[in-house]
């Protein structure tokens, strides 16, 4: 048997947030120094995910699922603990985030591709595929503010799945656009499962998660309970 390669290794991850009730300001900091409410989002979480595994994470709202994904994606840094991630992480959450409304579809594809870590040459290579998959037709030259919500989602999804991710982050409710595209995107995601990509999936739905993933974790109040 081939030795299992580590894709993600989290050791003793703790993430503490400072709770703000208002916008944080310097003046406030000076006036009321000692008052600092903190919120513990992840409490000493350790987790190893091997290449080719698909891990489902379930848990109620506020259990720290999003924070865990952000740590894995490198969007935020934990308060303590060590993170090791091997390979390109692409998240299929917040698909329309990071688009610029003034720029055209084409310009946004390049920008978005770079933001999620693609090289320019890579984007050039798959550009036609991205456009074809997103099915936005003549709108490719139009500024993004003329796009419908569905079109933006489709474009975001298309860029993300063409980024050749090693590790994919998914959300259960992640289906974009109309019936036709939902089918298409569902198929593409199924393909990732079949290709044995490393997948981290969050959901509220126990049945769905256990049916698609090789391992399921339960997250409650910042702790992993299996």
């Amino acid at each position, binding site marked *: 048997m081939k030795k299992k390669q580590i894709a993600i290794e989290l050791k003793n991850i703790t993430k503490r947030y400072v709770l703000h009730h208002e916008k944080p300001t310097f003046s406030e900091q000076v006036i009321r120094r000692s008052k600092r409410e903190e919120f513990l989002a992840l409490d000493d979480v350790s987790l190893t995910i091997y290449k080719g595994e698909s891990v489902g994470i379930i848990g109620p709202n506020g259990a720290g699922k999003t924070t865990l994904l952000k740590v894995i994606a490198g*969007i935020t840094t934990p308060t303590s*603990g060590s993170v090791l*991630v091997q390979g390109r992480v692409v998240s299929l959450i*917040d698909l329309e985030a990071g688009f610029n409304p003034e720029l055209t579809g084409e310009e946004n594809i390049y920008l978005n591709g*770079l933001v999620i870590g693609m090289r320019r040459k890579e984007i050039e290579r798959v550009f036609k595929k991205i456009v074809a998959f997103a099915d936005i037709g003549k709108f490719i030259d139009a500024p993004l503010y003329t796009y419908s919500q569905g079109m933006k989602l489709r474009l975001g999804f298309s860029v993300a799945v063409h980024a050749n991710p090693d590790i994919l982050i998914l959300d259960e409710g992640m289906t974009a656009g109309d019936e036709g595209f939902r089918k298409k995107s569902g198929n593409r995601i199924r393909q990732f499962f079949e290709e044995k990509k490393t997948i981290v999936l969050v959901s509220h739905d126990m049945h769905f998660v256990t049916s698609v993933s090789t391992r399921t974790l339960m997250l409650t109040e910042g702790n992993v309970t299996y």
Partner: protein
Amino acid sequence: MAATVEFYQTMKLSDKQLFWLEFVWAMTIKEIKARYKHAILGFLWIILNPLLQMLVIGFVFQFFLPVHVDNYFLFLFSGLLPWIFFSFTLSKCTPAIVYERSLIKKARFPREAIILSIVFSNVFHLLVSLALFFVVLLFVGKVSLLQLALLPIAVVWITLLASGFSLLATALNARFRDVNFFVQAVVPLWFYATPIVYTLDLIPQNLHALFYLNPMTAVIEAFRFALLGMPVTQASLWLVSVAASLLLCVLGWVVFQRESRYFDDWV
């Protein structure tokens, strides 16, 4: 207790740097394009803005300041161009990390690209207006090639200065939102504390050192020397100012890098 974070990608070190360059470059182009997409006069605004300021300020101030220069408008313009670059850059960069929260929350990418793209797009504007100003100077007929060689150095210098201040201000603004208000309040005052509408020799000699505490003083003088051949008030204090600018740039970079790991928590 500090966190250690390691992300391994199938990239060599040089690839990483190339990606960084590509990224900053693409963001800069985006910044320039997005700004002029819908403006009818387009790039004309680059030069129109300092021109209008020069006309209004020049018209008013020439009546009350005994500045001994050959042409007050040329004098004013050579100081206004770097000042406009600096103040626009700082004002736009300070809230930028907060404004770009949707980008920050999307993925892991070099956060400094958001700031550097604004700085570099403004450098581009500065270069365009300097080129046009240079054409005017050719007609007026007093261009020394030797002095002009200093111009690129002055541009690099002010770019470092603007980057340092911007990185520092925007990193602090992510954590303390009133930093933006502070910058908004200070920039107009800073204009008068910098010898732009006046020359330093109108100020008593013993106060000169105080003016050089303002890092903009020396750099504006550098521009004036390069463009108009105006003598420098105190050359020895220049070096101090260059050193201070470099230090500030490093400080801004370090603070930004430290804070950028946690931007997502604050915006």
